[in-house]
């Protein structure tokens, strides 16, 4: 069984495809020379050694399109593909800086990045890496950076908006698949950003230049020559502009969640032991922790070596989680931003360039701790639909039922009418019976909550 990856069509240099479940990349003849330079110059090896480029193996796999093929390589697999609109501020910033570092190293080896798409960066074992081995081309002395516009749209503009206007503007990347248009960013940014040299040049003046030259029919290539040392200076200047952007993660509803719940330290650690015990009973390699907050319980899974995606709706929580990943050098956990009431959908050309959350599943095990009341009560999702959602997401489900009478549920019901007559333990179990069988049921001491281990039917 073979199929070409639906996002892999823009660059004529090659494409990704699956054959019998194995991910392969066909390199086309037009890219043969660049590929040889990438390997022979030692650039590929250097970048792989620095953890900036995904490693690949050269085998004797048959190409999918032999008529245009040069060779086929096997890239190392990334556990979970995430998208820039699912990253916290620092994740996007780190991806931007990785891209610029790669570009600098490439320039010093006589090559250059021909694209700077944020989608070419993935978080792999706790670090941003370039997954597109075909992004490099031979550097022509004097040439400006072909991917400069794309870099500014994919990274600089959204980061500036997140830092200077509102962190939620990162979601503009979801509506603008090729990055935030610079004129839009320039309009939305506060005027004082024009006084920041990096943003003044790379964003405001850049947007103005685009506007000025939008009707030109000829290439500016012959007119614009930049010495390599100056081009490296421009990359440094971009890196300075990116590094200079700061966002302080405070002030959302969830920021201090664990210091503001009805769990004491003791019962929190008891719950953690319980989750660890349940995870130990199942044959899972991958976990999605839905509503993960700062990843406290995700780490029960990732510390056991399970590849864990920690999803939360709150940018502050995801930011804290990512900072912890970096600080501890963790490799098995990936924090991402996800609104489960409106999860990432299929996007892009023919609805197929970027995959929905469920399309990237199923995972082995789903953790849904202190989550169900938010979906069932705040978002009015019937329990039977929740059961179906979780059953699509994973084979195993570790779920905490939070009943009425619990202070967190009462808080949600305090300002609204209770239209949830089925929302009780028996109703929950009856609804989930349709998709799951209960393997274990455990009351959580010191609370009215119950923890379940369920297996999909």
């Amino acid at each position, binding site marked *: 069984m073979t199929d070409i990856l639906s996002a892999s069509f*823009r*660059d*004529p*240099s090659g494409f990704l495809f699956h054959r019998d479940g194995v991910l392969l990349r066909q390199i086309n003849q*037009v*890219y043969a020379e*660049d590929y040889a330079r990438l390997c022979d110059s030692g650039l590929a090896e*250097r970048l792989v050694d*620095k953890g900036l480029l995904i490693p690949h193996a050269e085998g004797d796999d048959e190409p999918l399109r032999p008529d245009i093929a040069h060779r086929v390589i096997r890239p190392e697999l990334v556990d979970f593909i995430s998208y820039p609109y699912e990253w916290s501020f620092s994740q996007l910033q780190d991806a931007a800086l990785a891209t610029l*570092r790669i570009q*600098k*190293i490439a320039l*010093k080896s006589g090559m250059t990045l*021909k*694209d700077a798409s944020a989608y070419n960066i993935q978080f792999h074992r706790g670090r941003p890496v370039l997954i597109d081995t075909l992004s490099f*081309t*031979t550097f*022509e002395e004097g*040439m*400006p*950076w*072909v*991917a*400069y*516009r*794309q870099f*500014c749209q994919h990274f600089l503009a959204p980061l500036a908006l997140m830092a200077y206007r509102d962190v939620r503007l990162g979601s503009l990347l979801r509506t603008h698949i090729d990055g935030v248009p610079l004129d839009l960013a320039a309009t939305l940014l506060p005027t004082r950003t024009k006084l920041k040299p990096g943003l003044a*040049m*790379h964003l405001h*003046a*850049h947007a103005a*230049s*685009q*506007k*000025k*030259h*939008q009707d*030109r029919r*000829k*290439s*500016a*290539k*012959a*007119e*614009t*020559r*930049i*010495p390599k*040392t*100056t*081009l*490296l*200076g*421009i990359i440094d*200047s971009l890196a300075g502009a990116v590094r200079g952007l700061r966002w302080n993660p405070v002030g959302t509803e969830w920021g201090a969640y664990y210091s503001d719940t009805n769990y004491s330290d003791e019962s929190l650690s008891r719950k953690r032991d319980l989750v660890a015990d349940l995870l130990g009973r199942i044959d899972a390699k991958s976990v999605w922790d839905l509503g993960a907050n700062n990843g406290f319980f995700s780490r029960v899974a990732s510390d056991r070596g399970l590849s864990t995606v920690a999803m939360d709706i709150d940018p502050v929580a995801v930011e804290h989680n990512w900072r912890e990943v970096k600080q501890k050098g963790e490799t098995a956990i990936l924090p991402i931003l996800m609104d489960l009431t409106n999860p990432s959908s299929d996007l892009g050309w023919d609805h197929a360039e970027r995959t929905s959350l469920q399309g990237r599943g199923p995972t082995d095990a789903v953790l849904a701790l202190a989550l169900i009341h938010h979906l069932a009560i705040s978002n009015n999702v019937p329990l039977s639909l929740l059961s179906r959602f979780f059953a699509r997401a994973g084979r195993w489900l570790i779920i905490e039922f939070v009943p009425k009478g619990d202070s967190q549920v009462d808080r949600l019901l305090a300002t609204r009418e209770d239209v949830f007559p089925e929302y009780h333990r028996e109703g929950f179990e009856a609804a989930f019976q349709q998709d799951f069988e209960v393997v274990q049921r455990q009351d959580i001491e010191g609370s009215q909550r119950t923890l379940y281990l369920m297996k999909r039917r």
Partner: protein
Amino acid sequence: MKITTLTMTGLIMAMLLVSAPAQAYIDPGTGSFMIQGLIAGVIGAGVAIKLFWHKIKAALTGKSAADPDDD
């Protein structure tokens, strides 16, 4: 004869102007190219001074600039 030469020159010039860099499959954008030229002018002097300074420093200390990616 003159016209032919002129036409040829014109054609070559036109080809040079429109030829895309190898494998540039995304549109770099004319405005994005032009602004890089301007920025190069702005920071070019700074880059030259920096390089000069690094050279002096390297000559004095015997050590080259410490960029971990310079290897």
